[in-house]
């Protein structure tokens, strides 16, 4: 009997088949793939320009098969704005960690969202600074021990964590805001849907799409990858609820900015 090979799984066209530098168990690998799949499914690879952050994902351009710009820390939404205004038909996305987006880049993300800039933002929130070896982030949870909160983050000293998605949802500008997670197969599938919609917010509805993706950092959480996924489900997700916070896609079918 003849057998036929059927390809069940392959590298997306928008990804480069390279060995990644990320730690074992890092969820950047999953999120990169979801972004690449969304770009392939929408058929926009040749129009895409990605903007990489300062942080572990600075090297994203080594893994993605599209034009890329490496931006200053936190400034990716501003770089994206400049590019998008110069070339409105380009599909531009930023990919930022919690230091890049929620610390130094707080102003840039708020204003790009408020302007409903034509861009997609993937916010990878793992509640810690990985590249610089484990300091606390604006999204680190109360009680969490890190290299700069050795006694555990406290309300009195370091203040409260920031829920970025809810903060941006208070603005009239954004077209789509969701929070997803990549900590289990069901959450990964939901994250993929959210990322697709965040790209559609830009591609079809010419506006600002944003997905906060709860992720893990086994290395600096001091856990195995499996323990980290469990911690995320049990402690991180309850503080940062999953779901779609803003969906203004209907009603924004026509571009409002003069071209």
């Amino acid at each position, binding site marked *: 009997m003849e057998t036929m090979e059927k390809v069940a799984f392959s590298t997306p066209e928008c990804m480069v088949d390279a060995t990644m530098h990320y730690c074992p168990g890092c969820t950047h690998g999953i999120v990169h793939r979801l972004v690449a799949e969304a770009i392939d499914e929408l058929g926009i*690879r*040749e*129009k*895409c*320009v990605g*903007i990489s952050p300062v942080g572990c994902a*600075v090297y994203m*351009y080594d893994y*993605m*098969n*599209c*034009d*890329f*710009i*490496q*931006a*200053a820390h936190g*400034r990716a939404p*501003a*770089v*994206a*704005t*400049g*590019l*998008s*205004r*110069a*070339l409105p038909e*380009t*599909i531009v996305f930023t990919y930022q960690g919690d230091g890049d987006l929620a610390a130094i880049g707080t*102003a*840039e993300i*708020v*204003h790009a969202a408020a302007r409903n800039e034509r861009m997609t933002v993937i916010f990878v929130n793992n509640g810690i600074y990985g590249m610089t070896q484990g300091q606390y982030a604006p999204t680190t949870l109360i009680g969490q021990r890190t290299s700069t909160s050795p006694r555990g983050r406290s309300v009195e000293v370091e203040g409260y964590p920031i829920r970025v998605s809810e903060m941006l949802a208070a603005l009239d500008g954004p077209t789509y805001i969701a929070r997803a997670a990549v900590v289990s197969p069901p959450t990964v599938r939901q994250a993929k849907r959210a990322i697709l919609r965040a790209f559609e917010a830009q591609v079809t509805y010419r506006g600002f799409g944003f997905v906060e993706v709860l992720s893990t950092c086994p290395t600096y959480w001091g856990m195995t990858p499996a323990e980290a996924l469990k911690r995320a489900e049990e402690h991180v997700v309850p503080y940062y609820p999953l779901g779609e916070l803003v969906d203004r896609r209907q009603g924004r079918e026509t571009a409002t900015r*003069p071209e």
Partner: protein
Amino acid sequence: MEDHTDDPRLGDLVLLKGNEAVCEGAIWAGCRFFFGYPITPQNQIPEMMSRRMPEVGGTYLQAESELAAISMVHGASSAGARAMTSSSSPGISLMQEGLSYLAGAELPCVVVNIQRGGPGLGNIAGAQSDYLQAVSGAHGDMFLPVYAPGSVQEIYDFVAEAFDTADRVRGPVIVLADAMLGQMTEAMRPRVDACPPAPEKPWATVGARNRAPNLITSLYTQPDSLAQHNRRIRARFESETRELCRADECLTEDADVILVSYGISSRSCQTACELLRESGVRTGLFRPTVVRPFPEARLAQLAARARLVVSVEMSLGQLVKDVRLAVQGRAPVTVLGRPGGTYSTSPEIAEFVVTTLQQMAS
């Protein structure tokens, strides 16, 4: 300025403020993207751009800060567009991060600094105390051309030329003016010919259609590779700025006292030269119109037959550093520096020269 010109490239005389000339020079050069933030004394630049950019099919966007504005320039320049921003001293400090990224990523752009008193919040008076900041640029080994206009006409001409220079060196170019030049209104002639088209930019990130992806970055993790990158940038800067070694000279043919000054303070120096000549001191003015690269060779020639070289600046000893480097001990060098937005008048400059010569003689 004469009423008539034979040059077909130049239009009729118009009255423009320095800040307005920034806008018109940029528009002539094909700049269609301006991202800025308000700061006195350059607010007329974003205000005028907000009006003029849509008129010429361009984009004006007021950024949330200077930090964001320079990054927006980074994005537009990555797209291959001619883009610019402007600010004043404290805002330029905020833009220095972005300037370094633009330089490392080999991205052309124009940045105009309408200097004011500093450091810190300082004041809104014209000053020249960002000279060292401008010629060093920002962190890292930076090689960026710095123009130093001395009139509204030169602001227009230099901003216009800066875009071409930026494309040739593939990096940021600074135009260094100050509050007085920015606020003053003078007659000038705009260009009425067409600006030559910008060069092709195959490196731009416009979407990878039928080609391998482009990457615009300043990150080179291996020291050897970053070293090679730095040397390449320097070599291109040197070869593309050879004709930028420029200075205007006034009464230098027989001068044995040379005043060195740029921008607004050079204007008081012109009259000071005349005053000094009336009392028999043969003084001339050497006025660099580009301060990076600094016109060292010509200044060295003038210094060789001088008994005194005086740097006249609205700062406390910044321009004089480049003057000393150029003179290399061929003549005594001293500085008449006025900080905080103050300046020396022509009689004060003349008196300083006379007093200095007397002190040298005794």
